[in-house]
């Protein structure tokens, strides 16, 4: 077992582009659930429309990439409005089912033969983010001896973490504004907020739009990072990753999604790399696990982590159990 290699992989995972992207999407989710109490289980749907909104104009109509990102954001706003009108009046658990169904509807739609002229159907889209890498200021890789990042990854990380911290800062400002106080009062007691004359529905909708836009930006970054999009990489499990990240960090804490994402990706890559080595060196015999099972083991571990967190420490690493009462009202 090469512990150093495992650790270097884990650190790479913890600070790499994916961690930044997931942190950004989880910040959006934190606005929904942590501050407004909305059970949004369709965050991946916002990421999907964000990613395709970015890629399709570039590939199909030759627009510049920034215009694509703008289209992605607009798509997310539209999706939030479409989704919010029927479902935001419902009780929390109905909202959860409606959102997860909506995300799946979108995935079916984007991979269907109808959408193929624009989205490429099951084959997806490729090579649309050249405009992003053209601005890459890094010329050489970052080499720490035991850990290297390519200039490409560095550029995505810079933008990704930058966006995540900007979003967190925005959330911090908003949440301490009067608007944010109303939002939290909606979470705590919808009836009380309503009886004070607040338009609960409008606040929920604003929260859904704002968090959805952050999801869409994360989706755009996913597309930019991998230079390839496929509807089937936007499975519901991404949403469950985001929930795990948010709850691990501690819902309704400004920096929780960022901390959660770093810890989550560290643990996940650690497990991945340690298992790979254990199987490679024969420590885990092939009759028990083979390398192609690692993905499944990893998902199972996320599920187990989510279960145990929810059972024994629903406040996560930095949350305050009193601040967030998890219940349907």
């Amino acid at each position, binding site marked *: 077992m090469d512990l150093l290699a495992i650790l270097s992989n884990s650190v790479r995972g913890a600070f790499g582009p994916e961690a930044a992207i997931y942190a950004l999407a989880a910040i959006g989710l934190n606005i929904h659930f942590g501050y407004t109490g909305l059970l949004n289980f369709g965050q991946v749907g916002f990421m999907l429309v964000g990613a395709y909104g970015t890629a399709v104009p570039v590939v199909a109509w030759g627009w510049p990439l920034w215009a694509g990102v703008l289209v992605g954001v607009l798509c997310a706003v539209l999706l939030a409005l479409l989704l919010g009108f029927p479902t935001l*009046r419902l009780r929390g*658990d*109905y909202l959860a089912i409606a959102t997860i*169904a909506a995300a*799946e509807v979108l995935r079916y739609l984007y991979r269907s033969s109808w959408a193929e002229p624009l989205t490429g159907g099951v084959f997806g889209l490729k090579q649309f983010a050249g405009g992003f890498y053209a601005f890459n200021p890094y010329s050489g890789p970052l080499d720490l001896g035991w850990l290297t990042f390519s200039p490409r990854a560095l550029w995505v990380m810079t933008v990704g973490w930058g966006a995540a911290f900007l979003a967190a800062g925005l959330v911090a400002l908003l949440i301490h504004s009067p608007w944010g106080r109303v939002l939290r009062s909606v979470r705590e007691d919808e009836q009380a907020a309503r009886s004070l004359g607040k338009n609960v529905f409008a606040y929920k909708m604003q929260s859904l739009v704002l968090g959805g836009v952050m999801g869409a930006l994360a989706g755009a970054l996913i597309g930019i990072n991998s230079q390839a999009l496929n509807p089937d990489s936007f499975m519901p499990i991404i949403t469950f990753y985001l929930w795990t990240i948010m709850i691990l960090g501690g819902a309704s804490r400004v920096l929780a999604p960022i901390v959660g994402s770093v810890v989550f990706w560290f643990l996940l890559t650690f497990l991945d790399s340690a298992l790979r080595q254990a199987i490679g060196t024969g420590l885990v015999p092939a009759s028990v696990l083979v390398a192609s099972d690692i993905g499944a083991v990893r998902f199972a571990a996320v599920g187990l982590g*989510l279960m145990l967190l*929810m*059972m*024994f420490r629903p406040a996560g690493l930095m949350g305050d159990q009193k601040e967030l009462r998890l219940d*349907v009202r």
Partner: protein
Amino acid sequence: MLARLVGLLAALTIALSWGAVAVAAPGAGPVTGAGDTAPVTTASMLPLQQTEAPDDAEETQQPEEPAELLRGTLRGPDRQPLSGLTITVTRDGEEVGSTVTDDQGQWEVGLPGPGTYAVGYDPAELPEGVVPREEGGEQLQGVVVRPGAAQGVIFQLAGDGEGEGVPGGGSGAGAAGPTLLSKVAQLLVEGIKFGAIIAITSVGLSLVFGTTRLINFAHGEFVTIGAVVAFFASTGGPLPLVLGAVVAIAFAAALAGGLELSVWRPMRRRSTGLIQMFIVAIGLSLVLRHLVLVVFGSRRRQYDEFTLQPAWDLGLVRITPRDLVITVLAFLVMVLVAVMLQRTRTGKAMRAVNDNQDLARASGIDVERVVMVVWLVGGGLAGLGGVLYGLTQAIYPEMGFTLLLLMFAGVILGGIGSAYGAMIGSLAIGVISQLSTLWFPASLQFMWALLAMILVLLFRPQGILGRRERIG
């Protein structure tokens, strides 16, 4: 807390011990491609194995399978593997490679890189009485191979003279003659069969919600596990499928009961919030689904019994004996559940708990026992539904989750908490999803079912049979 951990471990042990048994069962049966009973789209080949979709964002470090290849399994109409056929792969008319199918009918050709290929075999080598299902089906053009992909290729074969009429689960539309009436009738039959399967699986989901207010996100996993246990017991093991199904039902029921004892009951005792329990259920579903994935593999497989049957022509519609039995069986089960709910003591107690738990408890009903029975019945029914679904489509680890969303649609359509509502709603969802293929692509059929659910939430959130209560 200690007792609870022990309980959780016990449940996991059940799951793992079953896993060990399953691994021990050798030669896990013939591996088939995306089975041709699935609603096959018009193209006669399907990508076999979408590489593990969600995590390709981070596959940057260690590419696992650098080489592209084409592979497949050649089977005759009786599902016997065809060995000794020469498969030739060409690109732009130039031969890239060729191979001969082995005695399992399997073949694999390595490729120089991603691109578009043509694959074919020599129809003269086919055994007597076997022909390509479609004219020119021995040569497939335009097979797109993506970087690093092991692209599956399916050649569809038919018995001589059988032609297009090979029974299939899904798009019976093409088979049953051109008139609109018979198309609609055929799709209605398919839809009712599919809806009946969803109905028997969703009864448990609805009853559990009615008695405990828990939205059991892991309910789909009972379906998958039922199908998989039956597979390992029958196709990969010694039992006939009928007995395998009994084992599967017992196993799914035991798993549901074990989870109630180890996870849900302790959480209710601590009066955990419902959202918290909902999220725990999501975690549980991830754990179970991916344990199945490790044990079973990601490929779609089929039971080796009742796979290919000649369809009975009933004038307007065609139906295989298998599908008829499945439909009748599902309806029989629904009637039994209804009789149980109406006539037996336990069933009445279930309805009482469903209506008002406190009142039921005050009048001397042992609520915990009733909830336990609900889990056992619901788990067992889900297991049975999994076997039936596996028979009509294919067995794969995601099947429970796919079905779960349709179950939610059915349950919400019918009115959450009501067993009868779940049945009616599920039948409606089955019919909607099948009828949609009349006008829309078959790949979108589940989308319409989910859209129907969202529409119901908009206009009548309590569903068809649901009680009027404040849900907004």
